[in-house]
């Protein structure tokens, strides 16, 4: 719902359809009939936020509970923000049009470190004090956050009352239920938060004290009031019975991923050593083909979408991918629905899968070898061989594809300039493969896009102790790739090193960064994930003002025995396993994936998923 005041200037801003709600399947309740009002905030634009699957799941799930009304809030784009501030209009939720400050819960999903500034900015625009300590002790305006960046909550610990660690479907509702009880008993927010901390998967940062050594590293981390010393993540144990929406809000304006999305499994068997998702979502848990098929069908029926995307960290690792595609294609072509299969691995693109996708729509092909040389791919445990990639490309070219996108990373641990040049050489080898494939598309040229992002060391990965290459080194490596490319068929893109640097600072930061974040909010920082707004110079000035050296977080090698800012959080993977993986990386040794051999990472303690599947070689 949009207010008369907002309507007065909506036509002055770009894409006003983002600020009005009113979409098909939007949930409207009477606020007098509900006990808990939850503002689900996505700290980016409508188009980005509406594409996010986690929000769709939790929005539907919360609203399926009669006493909760969950609404959506997105960051207004800069032109809209300017108009709203000028006219003193607080940030509002799309469903009711009510300001953020009216809500019991204000929840953020943290997908990206550079959206932290948007989170604080949204609180500010919504008329909510950004710091936990400055908010009311009444039971309202409880700021909660979850998502992958919650795995190191420390840089934003002073702003968030509750972090959800791990998967949200169960723990969120337990917290809301506790809120309801506490409210009935007239408890204060402080009392409520203390009780919350006893729920598994809940981290209340205000219940912990941090002490530092003189060199700036952490000396101790101490719980108060009997709060748990270690916070354990939550996992859904049975994916088939986990809540999944049969309905999405269908946006009126075009969004980034404008299609139905069907999750097929959580976690990843591979264990690529740079990949945070590959560790924090362990163990791999699959949905059955029948569940997926039924959920896909319901989604398409209820939304009118003619495209459904199968979502996971690595689609071709789904153990029953071919039977699943067979089930899906039995109705999709009649109903004119197409299936897209993102996140395909180089070694997972078989003729069979190709023909199934091809029956509906020929989308672009994207593979992520991640590194150019075989040695480097072994270091990161990518487990992809040069010949496999060439074989896969040959299959695709024979099948009529003429464009391939290849994703790489630069700045990986132990990387040399020769490894970097091999990125260009691999691109060239793909071009050569095209012309050596006898039945490639007639009369057409090949296009290979090579993209290189900069490695950002992340918590809970074997590389969490690694320094990031400094910006001049990253620039040098980018330049080296450009100079090593010989063919006009190769297009090279690279990711801005400045943003990767800031990402690295916040990814592994501690509570001392809260002061920087607070100042950033005061100075009006927002949309740092967007080139339109991001300025490293401005951030460096803030760091200097706070007396903080960002290189301490991004470019310093940490020792295995240093207390890391996120050490009190347990994602199921043992630290000793991460250390051994890191050491194996230095020796160019790979680790087999979960289906080949259990490497005893620790995730088996959840008692479910791939850890308990029968392995083929054991039959």
């Amino acid at each position, binding site marked *: 719902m*949009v207010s008369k005041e907002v309507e*007065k200037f*909506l*036509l002055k801003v770009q894409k*006003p*359809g983002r*600020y*009005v*709600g*009113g*979409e*098909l399947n939007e949930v409207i309740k009477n606020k007098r009939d509900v006990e808990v009002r939850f503002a689900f905030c996505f700290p980016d634009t409508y188009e980005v936020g509406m594409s996010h699957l986690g929000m769709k799941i939790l929005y539907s799930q919360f609203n399926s509970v009669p006493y909760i009304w969950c609404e959506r809030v997105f960051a207004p784009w800069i032109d809209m923000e300017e108009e709203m501030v000028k006219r003193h209009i607080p940030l509002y939720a799309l469903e009711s049009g009510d300001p953020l400050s009216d809500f019991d819960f204000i929840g953020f999903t943290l997908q990206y470190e550079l959206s932290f500034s948007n989170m604080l900015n949204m609180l500010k625009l919504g008329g909510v004090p950004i710091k936990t300590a400055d908010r009311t002790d009444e039971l309202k305006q409880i700021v909660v956050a979850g998502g992958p960046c919650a795995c190191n909550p420390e840089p934003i610990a002073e702003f968030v009352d509750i972090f959800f660690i791990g998967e949200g479907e169960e723990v969120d509702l337990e917290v809301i239920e506790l809120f309801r009880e506490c409210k009935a008993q007239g408890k204060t927010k402080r009392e409520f938060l203390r009780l919350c901390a006893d729920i598994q998967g809940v981290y209340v940062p205000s219940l912990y004290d941090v002490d530092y050594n003189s060199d700036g590293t952490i000396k101790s981390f101490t719980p108060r009031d009997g709060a748990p010393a270690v916070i354990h993540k939550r996992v859904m144990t049975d994916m088939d019975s986990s809540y999944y929406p049969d309905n999405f809000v*269908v946006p*009126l*304006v*075009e969004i980034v991923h*404008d299609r139905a999305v069907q999750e097929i499994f959580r976690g990843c068997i591979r264990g690529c050593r740079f990949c945070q998702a590959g560790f924090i979502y362990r163990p791999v848990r699959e949905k059955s083909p029948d569940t997926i098929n039924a959920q896909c069908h319901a989604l398409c*029926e*209820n*939304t*009118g*979408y*003619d495209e459904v995307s199968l979502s996971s960290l690595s689609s071709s690792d789904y153990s029953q991918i071919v039977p699943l595609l067979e089930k899906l294609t039995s109705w999709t072509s009649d109903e*004119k629905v*197409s299936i897209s299969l993102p996140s395909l691995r180089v070694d997972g693109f078989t003729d069979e899968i190709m023909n199934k996708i091809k029956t509906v*729509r*020929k989308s672009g092909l994207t593979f992520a070898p991640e590194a150019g040389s075989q040695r480097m791919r072994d270091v990161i445990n990518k487990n992809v061989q040069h010949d496999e990639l060439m074989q896969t490309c040959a299959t695709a070219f024979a099948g009529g594809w003429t464009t391939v996108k290849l994703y790489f990373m630069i700045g990986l641990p132990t990387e040399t300039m020769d490894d970097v040049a091999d990125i260009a050489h691999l691109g060239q080898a793909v071009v050569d493969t095209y012309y050596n494939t006898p039945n490639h598309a007639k009369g057409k040229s090949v296009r290979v896009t090579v993209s290189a992002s900069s490695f950002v060391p992340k918590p809970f990965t074997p590389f969490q102790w690694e320094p990031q290459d400094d910006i001049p080194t990253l620039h040098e490596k980018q330049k080296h790739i450009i100079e090593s490319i010989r063919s006009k068929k190769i297009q090279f893109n690279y990711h801005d090193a400045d943003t990767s640097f800031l990402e690295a600072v916040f990814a592994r930061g501690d509570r001392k960064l809260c002061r920087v974040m607070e100042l950033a909010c005061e100075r009006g920082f927002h949309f740092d994930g967007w080139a339109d707004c991001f300025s490293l110079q401005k951030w460096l000035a803030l760091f200097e003002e706070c007396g903080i050296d960002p290189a301490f977080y991004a470019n310093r090698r940490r020792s295995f025995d240093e207390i890391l800012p996120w050490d009190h959080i347990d994602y199921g993977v043992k630290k000793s396993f991460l250390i051994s993986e890191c050491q194996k990386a230095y020796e160019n040794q790979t680790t087999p994936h979960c289906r080949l051999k259990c490497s005893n990472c620790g995730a088996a303690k959840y008692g479910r998923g791939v850890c308990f599947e029968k392995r083929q070689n054991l039959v």
Partner: protein
Amino acid sequence: MKNVRIWFKKDFECRYISHLDLNRTMLRALHKSKIPIWHTEGFNPHPFATFPLPLSLGFRGVNECMDVRLEDDDYSFEEISKKLNACLPRGIRVFNVTEAVMKAGKVAFASFTIHLSLDNKPSGLICQQLNDLLEQDSILIEKKSKKGMKTVDIKPGIKSYSVTEKFDSACLEIVLSAGSSDNVNPNLIISALEQKTGAEYNVDVTRNDLYNSDMEPFR
């Protein structure tokens, strides 16, 4: 196969979506409704729908139309209304389905109701300003074209108009040239007015009806 014209209103939240977004929303609703509409036969089949005259972002439309081809000649028009409304957002409501009597290209005029107001200014003043503008022999505006800016006279595109003073706004009823050749968008009149007076108005535009070159209602 039968050509069918679907009549609808576009208002509330849906007032703020562009023609491209409307197109996407309609195609999705047609797909969801499972009404037997002819689909394009390309590699990526989708329901085929055309709009005789697109509506600008921000305008309310009370008598808008979209043409589709029905594969089943006996399919009930009432059923189309009912099914489509169940699949559309609340800001778009189908109220009638007819055969397409006139060709889409026959649209030559469109009528609009435009409310203009200024915070803390009497509506009588705005009426005066409107009359002053519209009485001119020519109304020249700068228009962007492929070869840079170009000056165009929009006066010949104004078929008729009337200005009435309302309690909180000035109300302009106007009929303008419409269609693919000499289209005059009411936004041009508003920007001509704003250029002349230097004020920035609160504007509310509703498109009422479409007409052919003989001013017969488009059917």
